[in-house]
């Protein structure tokens, strides 16, 4: 799919939780085909310390409305400025970027595991999986009850299993402690979240020989494969996570085997 630079119009900016926002933008040109797992590079204006674009996963998409939603976690001045964007303003994006998750085939049991802002690509993935006739299941980990994000949108697509580190909601512990994850049979696990979480999920999948793809959030400058900054060590050498990823099969990653 051809990449483009476009000024999209902000339709809505919804605060999910302290520090988390969903920005919905409209494309007057009509959205190109965007696959689950792909991302955008957003230009942040009037933020003096923000020089580079900010990579954001496509959180959701409505092809009828020509809108896409981006989940933004405030991590510094750039994302803070972005979180204050208002309807009617333009948001300049380079998109669609990166590869995508491999969709399951009918009859497979699939689990989408994530935590925090790592949930971002999993909503759109869950929607595409549902459209392909497969029932997605979700497993999410949060620090505590107050950190749980847009649960309802996920539970509209399938069962959601929760874990909190302090046990304030769902199971006590991490995503990997959720009994449905540990004890049930899964054909595919898709994962996005903090690196330690992805490594733990990958270790279990590897041990149980479950197909597992993870979406990495490496530091990135260009998003186009021209700066070679966001590399990840793989069995085929250092690869750009912006063009060869962000989605990688765990068997392709070196951190999985050593971690």
């Amino acid at each position, binding site marked *: 799919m*051809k*990449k*483009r*630079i476009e000024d999209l119009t902000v339709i809505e900016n919804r605060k999910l939780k302290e520090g988390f926002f969903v920005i919905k933008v409209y494309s007057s040109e009509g959205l190109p085909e965007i696959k689950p797992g792909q991302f955008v590079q957003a*230009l942040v204006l009037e933020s*003096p*310390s*923000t*020089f*580079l*674009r900010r990579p954001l996963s496509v959180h959701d998409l409505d092809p009828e409305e020509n809108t896409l939603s981006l989940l933004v976690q405030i991590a510094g001045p750039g994302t803070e400025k972005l979180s204050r964007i208002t309807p009617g303003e333009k948001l300049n994006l*380079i998109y669609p970027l990166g590869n995508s998750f491999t969709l399951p085939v009918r009859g497979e049991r699939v689990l989408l595991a994530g935590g925090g802002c790592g949930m971002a690509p999993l909503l759109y993935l869950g929607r595409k999986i549902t459209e392909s006739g497969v029932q997605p299941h979700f497993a999410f980990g949060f620090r505590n009850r107050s950190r749980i994000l847009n649960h309802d949108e996920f539970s509209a697509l399938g069962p959601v299993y929760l874990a909190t580190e302090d046990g304030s909601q769902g199971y006590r512990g991490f995503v990997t402690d959720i009994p449905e994850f540990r004890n049930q049979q899964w054909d595919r696990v898709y994962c996005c979240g903090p690196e330690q979480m992805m490594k733990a999920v990958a270790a279990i999948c590897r041990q149980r020989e479950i197909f597992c793809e993870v979406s990495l959030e*490496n*530091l*990135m*400058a*260009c998003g*186009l*494969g*021209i*700066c*070679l*900054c*966001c*590399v*990840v*060590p793989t069995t085929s*050498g*250092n690869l750009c996570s912006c*063009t060869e990823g962000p989605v990688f099969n765990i068997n392709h990653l070196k951190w999985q085997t050593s971690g």
Partner: protein
Amino acid sequence: MADLRIKIGPLEFRNPVILASGTCGYGSELEDFINLSELGGIIVKGTTMEHREGNPYPRMAETASGMLNAVGLQNKGIDYFEKNIYPHLAEYNTHVIVNVNGNTVEDYVNLSARINRLGAIAAIELNISCPNVKKGGMIFGTNPASAREVISAVRRVYDKTLIVKLSPNVTDITEFARISEEEGAEAVSLVNTLLGMAVDVRTMRPKLSTITGGLSGPAIKPVALRMVWQVARAVKIPVIGLGGIMNAEDALEFIIAGATAVQVGTASFINPRAGVEIVKGIEKYLGEKELDSVCRITGIINRI
């Protein structure tokens, strides 16, 4: 319409805007956004004799008005380049220049001799200024005797246009420009990145795996511009200016200060159309000033 053509040695460029090495891949990465034939040329990424994996992640840190990188010349080596990449480059309707790197004088010579045989490569840019490798690179570009040795040796095996890319991490950059001129280079390009670093105060660790890296972006533009001005007064060969050029006005500053051509680098990371927009901006400026050629303003700062 003003004439944008410029000459570097025997080579005529369609316009003075060239994409900088390490910021445009092999050109194809940008073809969704621009038509490469609208540029003066592209300098494809730093190439070495052998396959290199580069430095470990993290290799990048955003800084005020710029960024640090420590890529470390990741590339698949000249054999792979010649077999798999060169055939595509040969089809581009723009000048394709290869940025040449090595650990030793012998590496630079062998690689330059190999590229000398590739008809569609218009020129080489001898990179004696990469700050992110343990051997070679900036070590050659910060020691006058080593710089002379490598330029002279490459000149003997390379017949076409030879551009030497200079490091700003020296006391007097004009000394290295003079050496390049004396050893027969057709042009110098400057500046490569400035050596810098950044610290993560939360982890109390350097932000780059290599601790130090090369600073680029608007943060370095005034330094680069000053050096281009100094070098343009010190040598007769053309100067190609780079360092923090984000738009046509930045590019014009370099040309007015003495640059025959400019390179656009980090700007492409934020706006992949930057190079082409700069060409259009220069053309518009010349039209407004009623100038018939970009050459009219090259180094004009010293004449008015």
